[in-house]
């Protein structure tokens, strides 16, 4: 989206997204096979197994923040490598290749220290998938942060995913779109940004995340004046809200 295309300067453009999941046909039954496939699997598959899980069926509290860790724990019964893999924060990595190398490093470390090869049951193999993310405009705009109090509870899971999860890897600064917008509106929103930062995005369903964001926005913004704030300085990414920032086209997502 062209920065100058629409908007007057400080509005937040609400977008939504939906995932189509694609099978890759690649499977793993042992830790070694998992490592071998991770070496050359499509980068979109690594994205999918870290982030896509949030748009798939799950109950609120997830035990592991990525599919690799979960499979090692539940199907290989190797809690050591599962715990190590679960500590990876994907937002720490600049691109999928860096994240891929980290995964391989952790798995190789575990392969070096174990003599017994764990094998998953045939019907519990790891299936590598990847996803196509379709992003679309809801045609809704927010002109003041206080509008978040009413808007967030009505957002779809796809909208929460796009603005709160996907933004972390979409944008170079690695934060969600809500904080990116608020940071651009002045230092007065710093306490709110800090409260948003405390919400761990990887362990809860998108609906629970929506509830938490709703609670935080209500706590900080219910009595905020409705005068549209002016953007200050040159924010890292929030001046025009989410759509100001470009996705990194061409990079394997």
């Amino acid at each position: 989206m062209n920065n100058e295309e629409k908007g007057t300067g400080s509005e937040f453009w609400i977008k939504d997204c939906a995932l189509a999941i694609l099978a890759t046909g690649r499977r793993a039954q042992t830790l070694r096979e998992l490592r071998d496939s991770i070496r050359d699997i499509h980068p979109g598959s690594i994205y999918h197994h870290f982030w896509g899980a949030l748009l798939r069926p799950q109950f609120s509290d997830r035990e592991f923040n990525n599919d690799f860790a979960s499979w090692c724990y539940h199907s290989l019964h190797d809690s050591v490598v599962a715990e190590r893999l679960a500590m990876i924060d994907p937002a720490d990595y600049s691109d999928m290749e860096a994240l891929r190398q980290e995964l391989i490093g952790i798995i190789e470390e575990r392969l070096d220290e174990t003599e017994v090869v764990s094998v998953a049951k045939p019907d519990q193999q790891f299936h590598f998938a990847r996803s196509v993310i379709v992003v679309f405009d809801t045609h809704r705009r927010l002109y003041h942060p206080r509008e978040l109090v009413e808007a967030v509870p009505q957002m779809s899971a796809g909208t929460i995913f796009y603005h709160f999860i996907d933004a972390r890897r979409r944008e170079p600064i690695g934060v969600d779109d809500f904080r990116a917008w608020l940071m651009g509106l002045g230092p007065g929103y710093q306490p709110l940004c800090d409260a948003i930062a405390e919400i761990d995005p990887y362990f809860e369903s998108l609906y629970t995340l929506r509830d938490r964001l709703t609670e935080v926005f209500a706590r900080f913004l219910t009595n905020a004046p409705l005068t549209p704030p002016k953007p200050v300085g040159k924010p890292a990414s929030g001046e025009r809200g989410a759509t100001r920032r470009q996705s990194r086209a061409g990079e394997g997502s």
Partner: protein
Amino acid sequence: MDQSSSGGSLLDRYVEPAGPDAVAQLRQLAELLAGIKVVHVNSTRTGGGVAEILEAIVPLMQDLGLDTRWEVIEGSEDFFTCTKSFHNALQGKSLEIPSSFLRCYEQTNAGNAERLRTVLEEADIVIVHDPQPAPLITHCPNRRGKWIWRCHIDLSHPYRPVWKYLREFLTQYDASIFSLDAFAQPMPHPVFLIPPSIDPLSEKNIPLDAETVQRTLAEFGIDRERPILLQVSRFDRFKDPLGVIQAYRLATRFIPGLQLVLAGGGAADDPEGEVVLRDVRAAAEGDPDIHVLSSGHYSDRTINALQTGADIVLQKSLREGFGLTVTEAMWKAKPVIGGNTGGIRLQLMNHRTGFLVDTPEGAALRIRYLLADRRRMKEIGQNARELVRQNFLITRHLREYLTVMVSLLHGTQDRIELG
């Protein structure tokens, strides 16, 4: 903000069960596809899971502004005998299919193509369900749209000669859709994964009043005042009805008032089913609290009433596809104890939405655990309903169809930004 927007449409009826956000999202996604021509093709208008899904999805697609048609191919008895054999072979049964049947299969599709060619060639998206109409694509050389093969069958271990024969037709498609990754086969085109769903407004799933439930239970001599376990499934060894009886017996040592309902039926044309049913009756003999309901076909409303009236629903399968009976029970806020297999694993999370078990002993333990703490049982049931609301309703199924269509029409790159 009114996300459900206009009143009175079919889609509006899904606002209550699925949520206004889900319905609004469907409308926005469908705007990207407004006016496109979509044709679904299968082999029956009534009966079976595919027709059930199309009955719900086709009107919803029309309501969303997609010019959607549902076409059904016609065939002789030999044709359907042949496709029934395909079905069994694709699920792993080794059987040879006579070449006369294969000729009939191909000729039937050629005949249907004559009738449907114009509609199919003009469509933007054609979704062909299961193997019966698969060869239609070979008779539509001037097709302008994208053709998708939607497989509702578990293809994880197909009988190879039959798969090899059918694959020749299927590789001509632009994409395939399977229900689970474990069910998929490698293809030379994109293979999408879309789990099945239930329709919350169907007879099987609409909320029933207490009187209807009570009347149904009374009709079968089931006492509503005592705990009820229920398993709804064919009398098939893979559904492990004998294991369910064993679990019930183990649990009755601690809960003497327990009742078990095994509702199946339709075994008359299935010799193996007859044997299983006989074994089940023998195992249940002498216990008036085991109700084996097998006398023919039960209406969707009857099954709904049994599920609504049960305290715990079991689906102790040893092998299972997706397990939509699990989804149906969860939608009725029932805790489900299911076999640790297939799609049941996607739906049941221990202590949260139900329990996965590997043995009759495991099932008995979970029955005791749940009945000992009614408050916990209710909580798990509510969680189960919420999981289904978020993930397994037809609105999600429809959203994924729309997403697949958008991605095929815009090229399946990783990220498509529109609007």
